[in-house]
């Protein structure tokens, strides 16, 4: 423990008076910060400029002038506009990177409108931007109009693409070995799966689709060396997937993200294990031969999906 001496400071009020004064000054600062962040979080105009009129009809500039100083080159409004733009560009870029498939399905304009609406309703509540898109599927279920007419496809994509964020940097726990299982009663034994493993039931074959979108983006990048513009056409070149029920595992191995198609019964059994059922109970949730179930367990174990508790 490092001990640092406390300087006396400018005023030495009694502890009670000091706490009250601190509370007041904190409240004052908080009010100013609320006002500032409120202005910075206002969505930009269609020309990517700061809106000049607030949603309640009041002029934005007059409000900002009350707390931001102008200088000899920029008005108060223009100075805060720099932060307003930075806020949106930074956060939209993050969603742009995390949801390439969703972007490909909706097109860039619609994806951007969706992103702005999403961030308006669900602004970042976590210190790490990695979690910015964590509520996209929830948002799309609550407000499907932003993805019309591809509501279900978009919800599935949001789930599938978020699973990749988890696969990228969730924990890799110590793998269960055959020795850990020796002599254990399957009627009582419960297994735990890797935190980076997501098990998804999807109405579209999104594994193939997202691979195709990423390949297309790579081709776009390679041919875009001299262009200053964003790649507009490359996203749309991949056809939207047709409905087909699939079961997919998204996971990490040797720091690479993999997708693995699962049979329906296989999916149900491993979901049951993940959700805390015993091995015996989990094997009852789907009909499959003992030999088949044994093979699946062998594959899952090989992939290191089961971990020590």
């Amino acid at each position, binding site marked *: 423990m*490092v001990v640092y001496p406390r300087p006396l*400071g400018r005023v030495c009020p009694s502890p009670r008076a000091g706490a009250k004064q601190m509370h007041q000054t904190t409240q004052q600062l908080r009010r100013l910060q609320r006002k500032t962040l409120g202005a910075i979080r206002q969505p930009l105009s269609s020309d990517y400029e700061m809106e000049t009129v607030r949603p309640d009809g009041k002029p934005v500039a007059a409000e900002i002038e009350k707390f931001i100083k102008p200088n000899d080159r920029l008005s108060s409004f223009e100075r*805060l506009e720099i*932060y307003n733009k930075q806020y949106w560009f930074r956060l939209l870029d993050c969603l742009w990177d995390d949801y390439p498939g969703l972007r490909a399905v909706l097109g860039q304009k619609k994806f951007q409108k969706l992103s702005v609406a999403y961030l308006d309703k669900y602004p970042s509540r976590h210190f790490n931007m990695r979690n910015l898109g964590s509520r996209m599927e929830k948002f799309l279920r609550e407000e499907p109009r932003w993805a019309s007419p591809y509501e279900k496809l978009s919800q599935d994509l949001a789930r599938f693409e978020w699973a990749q964020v988890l696969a990228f940097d969730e924990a890799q726990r110590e793998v269960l070995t055959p020795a850990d299982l020796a002599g254990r009663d399957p009627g009582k034994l419960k297994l735990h799966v890797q935190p980076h493993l997501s098990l998804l039931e999807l109405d579209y074959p999104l594994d193939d689709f997202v691979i195709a979108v990423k390949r297309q983006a790579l081709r776009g990048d390679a041919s875009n060396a001299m262009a200053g513009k964003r790649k507009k056409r490359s996203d749309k070149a991949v056809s939207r997937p047709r409905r087909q029920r699939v079961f997919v595992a998204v996971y990490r191995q040797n720091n690479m993200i993999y997708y693995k198609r699962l049979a329906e019964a296989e999916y149900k059994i491993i979901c049951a294990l993940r959700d805390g059922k015993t091995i015996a109970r989990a094997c009852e949730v789907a009909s499959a031969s003992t030999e088949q179930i044994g093979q699946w367990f062998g594959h899952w174990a090989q992939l290191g999906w089961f971990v020590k508790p």
Partner: protein
Amino acid sequence: MPANRFNAFTDLGIGIGLRVPHYAHILNKKPTVDWFEVISENYMVDGGRPLEVLDKILEQYQVVQHGVSMYFGSTDKLNREHLKRLKSLVKRTKTPFLSDHLCWGSVDGTYSHDLLPMPYTFAAAKVTAERIRQARDFLEVPICVENVSSYAEFHASEMTEWEFLSEVVELADCGILLDVNNIYVSSKNHNFDPYDYLNGVPHERVGQIHIAGHSKFEKFILDTHDHPVLDPVWKMYAHAIGLCGPTNTLLEWDAHIPSFEEVHGEALKARKFLEELALPDGRLSPALGPGVSQPKGRG
């Protein structure tokens, strides 16, 4: 003086920021680099490639953590999850000290993910210093706070930025990560003399210096970290080390990142200024030593 209690008495030399495009080069070629600065938040995760790369880097190099989201100037209570994750990383990297910014960026639990400027008031200094103390008590490593570049100023301000920085670090009894590029950028955006800033901070508290490139626009300068360091910033750097002594120095290059060699080569230009500072016997030159004031109007 440069190795002081605010940087855990380290004399690290010249480092660069550890960035993803350089991972392969560093791991394969193992170049000689004095030290790397890592963005803490990039490694405050539970697994995956970022942590694996970090562990390999730690086998070979000295690493110092630099954060971007502690927001000492915010009014929310310090986030326990954030602190716990940060402390766990501190134990992993064995960073001798860590730094974050003198700014705010969240309110009521909503994050801007930006480094927003403070109103330079005595009250804000007090609130900020208290949070720095709390963070340091929890993390158990010295903390240096970095001055940010800014584009707006509050009417509420009661003092200059460097007076505010001085007030905060004295109240918190913490160190300073002096970003000379940020001083230059802000001096142009707010019409002050950057040498007044350099001369006006408590030099004995400077534990680290940042240098970087920026971009000029018609009516303001943006701190973009996507260029080599510009001449006026090098001149300020020379002045800063004249005041502070040969301090741990770090080049930031975060966008349009060129090859490892180019970034490292740019950082090593700082060596010339450090060598000019030292006499042949290793003592500091009196002409450039601490406490020497610089005429106004340079840069």
